[in-house]
């Protein structure tokens, strides 16, 4: 019997899964068991689309289809929780298993505390995450830095600080540091990310710490909740998964690697935030960059913190419809509503057609707000100030005062009768 806190090596006994899996195939084997035992109605995972650079969310209900979804796609920069909210009714009406990276796990919590997702119906298997690379950039990197045709590559991985590709006729690794110095490598939010082992999921799986004869053949599994423990026990009992306790030396190595990654995250934070300057310098920079905005609404569509039905950026009193670029208020509204809870998932930056480093701006503010208010986003169900009121209820309340303008309601300007 396993329990919360256990550190295990796990591997699958299913031949199909083993063939496709990244390591021990534990994640996929656990999903197989979850589906077969009806612990979940469906699992939402990432699988290969047109090629290995094309990560595609896939909803699987039939356990036999799972093997195709095993393996890690390091160009998978997607964020799944917002899809669960938008298209799967926030898991309100079905039990859902989801493989999550750190940013996914954090986004799940933020959406759940705003009542947009029912976490009781979600099982999360986390994967450790060293970072992801945008697909088109990855292809250019492989062409230019590796001198290899990206279509010849059949496997890519990040291991021991290197981005490694296997291709027809060989393999080649280049250190992530070197790649990032020349403008390639992980997304900028990933460089700053410090959610390396997503312990707020039910299980956290990875390769760090798998040493000895199991190296490369087993998945390191940290059991993070009772739900997770139950899932592991069930899978073992059904025969699809085998586990053994991790080697103490392995655990120690895992801790060291995690520590090193967190340090690296701090280094990048310092680097990125210092470059932004402080106070009015920072504000100026933000205003200058955001002045290119074309109001595509992608940053809003993709952000896991944005959920309002009546988005304030669409209030013509604040932002004139049709005006491009919109006035700075458009961005101020986002800052005001989101900054305390930004999970640095990078979506608003990766998807910005105007090349505005939105995630950097928001993350830099989140870090400051965390210092002031001690609110840590994405790790618990604790509410930040902005999430205390429910959108509909609060808008209705404001509306009943005769105005939905917060300024007028709070400050009651004199000339208003």
């Amino acid at each position, binding site marked *: 019997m396993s329990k919360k806190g256990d550190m295990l090596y796990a591997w699958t006994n299913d031949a199909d899964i083993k063939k496709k899996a990244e390591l021990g195939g534990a994640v996929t084997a656990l999903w197989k068991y979850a589906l077969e035992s009806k612990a979940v109605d469906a699992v939402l995972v990432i699988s290969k689309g047109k090629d290995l650079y094309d990560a595609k969310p*896939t909803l699987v209900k039939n356990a036999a289809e799972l093997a195709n979804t095993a393996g890690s796609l390091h160009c998978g920069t997607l964020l799944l929780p917002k899809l669960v909210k938008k*298209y799967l009714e926030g898991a309100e009406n079905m039990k859902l298993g989801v493989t999550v990276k750190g940013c996914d796990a954090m986004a799940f919590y933020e959406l759940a505390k705003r009542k947009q997702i029912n976490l009781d119906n979600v099982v999360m298997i986390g994967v450790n995450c060293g970072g992801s690379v945008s697909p088109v950039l990855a292809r250019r990197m492989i062409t230019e830095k590796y001198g290899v045709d990206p*279509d010849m590559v059949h496997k890519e991985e990040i291991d021991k600080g290197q981005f490694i590709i296997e291709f027809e006729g060989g393999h080649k690794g280049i250190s992530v540091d070197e790649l990032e110095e020349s403008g390639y490598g992980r997304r900028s939010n990933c460089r700053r990310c410090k959610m390396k082992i997503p312990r707020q999921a039910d299980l956290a799986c990875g390769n760090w710490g798998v040493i000895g004869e199991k190296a490369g053949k087993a998945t390191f599994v940290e059991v993070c909740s009772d739900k997770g423990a139950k899932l592991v026990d069930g899978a073992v009992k059904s025969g699809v998964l085998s586990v053994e306790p991790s080697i103490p030396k392995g655990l120690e190595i895992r801790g060291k690697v995690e520590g090193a990654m967190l340090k690296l995250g701090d280094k990048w934070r310092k680097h990125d935030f210092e470059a932004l300057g402080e106070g009015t310098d920072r504000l100026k920079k933000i205003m200058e960059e955001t002045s290119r905005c074309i109001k595509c609404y992608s940053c809003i569509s993709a952000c896991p913190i944005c959920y309002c039905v009546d988005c304030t950026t669409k209030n013509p009193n604040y932002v004139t419809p049709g005006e491009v670029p919109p006035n700075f208020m458009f961005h101020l509204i986002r800052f005001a509503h989101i900054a305390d809870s930004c999970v640095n998932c990078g979506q608003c930056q990766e998807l910005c057609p105007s*090349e505005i480093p939105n995630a950097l701006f928001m993350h830099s503010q989140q870090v400051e707000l965390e210092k002031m208010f001690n609110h840590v986003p994405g790790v618990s169900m604790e509410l930040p100030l902005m999430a205390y009121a429910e959108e509909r209820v609060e808008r209705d309340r404001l509306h009943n005062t005769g105005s939905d303008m917060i300024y007028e309601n709070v400050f009651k300007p004199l000339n208003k009768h």
Partner: protein
Amino acid sequence: MDFKYVPSICPYCGTGCGINLVVKDGQVKGISPWQRNPVNEGKVCIRGNKSFEFVNSAERITTPLIKKDGKFAEASWEDAYREIASKLKAVKGDEIGCVASARTCNEDNYVFKNFAANVVKTANIDYCGRRCNADAVRGLTEAFGQGAMTNSITDISAAKAILVIGSNPLEENPLAGRRVIMARKNGAKVIVADARTSATAKIADLHLAVNPGTEVAFVNGVAAAIIKAGKENKDFIAKKTANFEKCKAAVAPCTPDAVAKICGISAEAVTKAAELFTAAHPASIITSAGAVSGDLIRACANLALLTGNVGVAGAGVNLLRGKSNAQGAMDVGCVPADNGHTVPAMIEAAAAGKIKALYIMGENIASAGSHVAAVLDKVGFLVVQDMFMTETAAKAHVILPSASFAERDGTVTNSERRIQRVTKAVEPAGKSKADWQIVCDLAKAMGAEKDFAFTSSEEIFAEITKHVPAYAGITYTKLEAPEAVQWPAAGGKFGTAVLYADKFATKDGKGAFAAVEYKAGEAVSAEYPFAVAAQWPMGTLSMNTPSIVREFPEAKVIISKADAENLGIITGSSVKVSGKSGSVTLAATVTTAIKAGVVSLPLTFAAAAVKLEKTEEA
């Protein structure tokens, strides 16, 4: 529950961004980024972001309609075909006009072209492209050999200098505009010539508020200044071009002083633009809807040839197209031969009673203005194939309902000659059908079974590749890769990113300079004191997309703050705009982002000079 992503291409502009259609239980529920597409890397503008909305619109036409006593009645496909067949057979071929579409797929346009030529036997085939730069495309063919953007959207980011003229990519083709932003981040100098301080002008290093309609004079002036400074690329001119002397003579009168006067800018600005454009290599020229006449594109081509800016990444003359398949409709041949009419000529002929029937696929030509709408009211027989009850469709005798891009397979060709797959994600709304299918079924109903026996869009594409040389060798299988193929296919694994790397595709292999003279258009006068800058119009798709209508609920007349103050106009005022050909009353938007003396009006208001009067509020 069925849930899946289906990669497709944004149906709006000629940038051709990749998107993922999110399909749940047989319905398109939204769009999600498709990061793997090389054109846009998952990013989209508001139109792409909301491109699923019109698919599910309750306004979709879902059944064939036949007009009886001035009212539309639902009909079966068979009845609709029978009605059309009998009416079209009653008129002679050259009395029929066929209008193809810049927003339907290549396959649709190809069978439509064959329908015109072989079933109703008319030479009168054209596509909306008169407004979407058909003349500019011809200009490019004459100058360089191929009628398309010389370079790729991606390689604009490699430019070291960029001249944007007759175009506002940040708002009109935003994901091409993104490449301008990227170039600038890499140190490129950006020059924007526009009477409006457009979103693109706002990021420029040098913004020149040239008067509308004087763009040719400006480009000639830049060319003249370059020649005067001896900065022309003599080696390139000698080895790769013809007729330089003609161009040199033609631009000679465009001295900085002369240009300053015509364009309403300073003489220094002209020399400064010439300096910036020649200071670094490669330099790119971007133009689009503003290049209507063909003259501007030749002037731009001259400038590119003069500075050796053709055949390398980051250079070229880059004509951004308005609609998703403006390039493809032309590639597959939906343009009139010498004995056929263009769309404007068809309208004229119809007005004169010489065209008696029109078959229009996926275009709302009535939006071109009241004169066109009036002619459509009178034409003997009008067939319109569309998704929505457009102004044009409302005038039809028979309406054939088209499937949307999400409901069918096909290919579209973006501005940079990239032929991309549109993939069927859901079943067509109601009884609607893919445009190619409708055309083929109608052809069969008119007795042309053999040549229209296609059972899939792929079969039609295979046929296209046999008849369109640039498409030779391309298959649906090759288009499976997200890179797809940029024609001509022979250029490499994914086709040709940059045209003319070795030589031009003209007969003599040389880039052809042309003598392009600036011809003054209708000038402002005491009676009509304001020059008009055309606004990007709302198309059929936008008008049926609530999120876009919310941003642009109605056409506006945009007036400078200075002029508005003189006339007592404020934002929201009702303003009567009159030109020689008529008048219209619009709400005003007052802004500092337009030059005094210039107003911006919807493209459909055909006048170059107008007067403004504040009217009583309605």
